[in-house]
């Protein structure tokens, strides 16, 4: 393109950013919230306690599933950890049935209380966008590709990246302040933005880029999945002969010793059969890799059959990328760093979107009556950014307030309200002026976040006082985070209200585009 590298990259950055910005913001916002999805799950399930023995919990849960689904051919139960208090479980039945359940580690049975999507709402939205498979995931991956491209073109465009490294001049106001803020947020967390987006695509690689897999394995995809998960190589067809399952505790202890870590997940194939197999995966929260190392046992005798070999280099890199993205670290401080990185990414995208309108407003032929395209961007900016914020905040209300009579549909309704908040914010933004739209939605966000801990306490959910009495650090922190977010949005509302509503000064010659 004419104008040299920097000019063409600036053009590319502007348009790539606009095309993907709203969607990437939605992904970043729900992703940031998902850093603490286990804590949100525990918040939404007030009966879950933090202190349980994982091995005993696994046995209880397994016994419960055998009782509830005696014909299950395959049972998977996730061990409780200090962060993840509920036990995500699922089982397969012979007729192709698939049942998901959250089990309470204290009882082994389903968690009591009205059904709620819990931390899964934000997490699923983050990579599926509540769209049917595989379209949501494909859209998320494509958005991530656009985002990485925008970061790269942004870095090329930022000509004084080292001399402007610490430059932030909010007092200058207008385009300069927004640009400085955008650059600072981008540069300071640059490694994070790049690796989180790339590793995100890797987690969905078989959906987004399956051609390597199909070229290498053709129609024999089960062989691919067996090569990827070598712990399944010792599985056998059910014999039909019933056999008592050996106690799990010794198997867990042996797995911990051989694998060199805690057990994360229990998988039982052909439970109650003579050919039962128990697979125990190692918890990798002290490492950067996804959980792949597993020990396989004969279910009836408790004998160790195999331990997965160490992965090859390409697989190890893949596991590293997966682990880096999921961020399931035991170190709370590192998870907080991920949270801050996510927030900086949200700020980066939001400031970029606002910058797009701020820099163009000056060049409009009539700033008081912008053209339809410009107005559309303004409306969607508020709709996407504040819509996501309000949708996330609304979950903390719907999880407590939706009637229990909705039964199994209750999580679906939480999702519907989530989407409705986005739609309502877009509509609201179309009806109000820019300044009022940002200000009023910020006040609404402050109200919703501040009200969430109160609503929870009043409806028999988690309450700050009870959490302090129980010494439940995670729940105390979550309530404090909600209140801090509310405070942040109060500041934002007051600042947005003060933005002058006057038309910007016309210049004699347009200012040269700065980096």
């Amino acid at each position, binding site marked *: 393109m004419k*104008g040299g590298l920097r000019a063409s*990259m600036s053009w590319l950055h502007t348009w790539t950013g606009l095309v993907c910005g709203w969607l990437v913001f939605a992904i970043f916002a729900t992703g940031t919230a998902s850093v603490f999805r286990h804590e949100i799950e525990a918040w939404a399930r007030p009966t879950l306690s933090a202190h349980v023995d994982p091995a005993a919990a696994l046995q209880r849960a397994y016994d419960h599933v055998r009782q509830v689904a005696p014909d299950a051919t395959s049972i998977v139960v996730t061990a409780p950890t200090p962060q993840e208090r509920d036990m995500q479980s699922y089982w397969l039945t012979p007729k192709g049935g698939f049942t998901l359940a959250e089990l309470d580690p204290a009882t082994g049975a389903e968690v009591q209380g009205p059904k709620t999507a819990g931390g899964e709402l934000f997490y699923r939205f983050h990579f599926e966008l509540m769209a049917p498979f595989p379209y949501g995931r494909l859209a998320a991956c494509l958005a991530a590709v656009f985002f990485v*491209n925008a970061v790269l073109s942004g870095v090329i465009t930022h000509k004084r990246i080292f001399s402007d490294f610490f430059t932030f001049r909010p007092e200058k106001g207008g385009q300069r302040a927004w640009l400085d803020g955008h650059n600072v947020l981008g540069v300071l967390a640059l490694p994070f933005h790049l690796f989180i987006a790339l590793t995100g695509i890797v987690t969905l690689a078989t959906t987004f880029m399956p051609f*390597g897999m199909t070229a*290498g394995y053709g129609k024999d995809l089960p062989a691919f999945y067996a090569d990827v998960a070598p712990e399944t190589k010792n599985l056998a067809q059910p014999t039909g002969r019933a056999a008592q399952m050996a106690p799990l505790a010794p198997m867990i202890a042996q797995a911990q010793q051989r694998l060199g870590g805690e057990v994360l997940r229990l998988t039982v194939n052909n439970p109650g059969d003579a050919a039962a197999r128990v697979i125990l995966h190692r918890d990798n929260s002290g490492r950067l890799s996804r959980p792949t190392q597993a020990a396989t046992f004969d279910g009836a005798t408790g004998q160790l059959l195999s331990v997965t070999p160490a992965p090859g280099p390409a*697989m190890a890199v*893949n596991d590293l*990328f997966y682990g880096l993205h999921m961020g399931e670290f035991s170190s709370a401080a590192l998870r907080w760093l991920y949270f801050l990185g996510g927030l900086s990414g949200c700020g980066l995208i939001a400031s970029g979107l606002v910058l797009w309108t701020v820099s163009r407003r000056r060049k409009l032929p009539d700033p008081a009556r912008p053209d339809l395209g410009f107005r559309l961007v303004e409306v969607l900016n508020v709709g996407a950014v504040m819509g996501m914020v309000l949708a996330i905040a609304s979950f903390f209300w719907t999880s407590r307030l939706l009637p229990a009579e909705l039964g199994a549909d209750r999580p679906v309704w939480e999702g519907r309200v989530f989407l409705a908040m986005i739609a309502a914010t877009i509509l609201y933004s179309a009806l109000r002026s820019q300044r009022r739209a940002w200000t009023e939605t910020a006040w609404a966000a402050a109200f919703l976040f501040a009200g969430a801990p109160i609503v929870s306490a009043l409806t028999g959910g988690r309450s700050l006082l009870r959490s302090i009495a129980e010494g439940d650090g995670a729940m105390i922190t979550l309530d404090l985070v909600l209140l801090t977010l509310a405070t942040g949005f109060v500041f934002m509302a007051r600042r947005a209200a003060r933005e002058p509503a006057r038309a910007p000064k016309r210049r004699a010659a347009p200012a040269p585009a700065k980096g």
Partner: protein
Amino acid sequence: MTKAPASPASALAWRGMVAWRAILAVAANYGLCALLAMALARGLPHLGLARVEAVVAGTLAAIIAMPVVPIFVFASRSAWKPTATMAAAAGGLWLLLWLAGGPA
């Protein structure tokens, strides 16, 4: 910043050029990276890698390449250079894939 030219005829040419580069940067890019994944998945085992290793290596390479290609598509002065480069790369990968035994 590169601006769209004023006259209607050159404006149409500008839009056509942008649209062509967009097709290169998105659709052709995806196809090229898919070819890369396939070529590596089929080709690397001939160099001694295990099949699953080759597939994973190819997939990762394709994912990393995808965001980078549009930089080159939009950086060059004329739209024909990236077109020719991508076509040549696709041809080369296709040849490698065919030599390695074609898609399974």
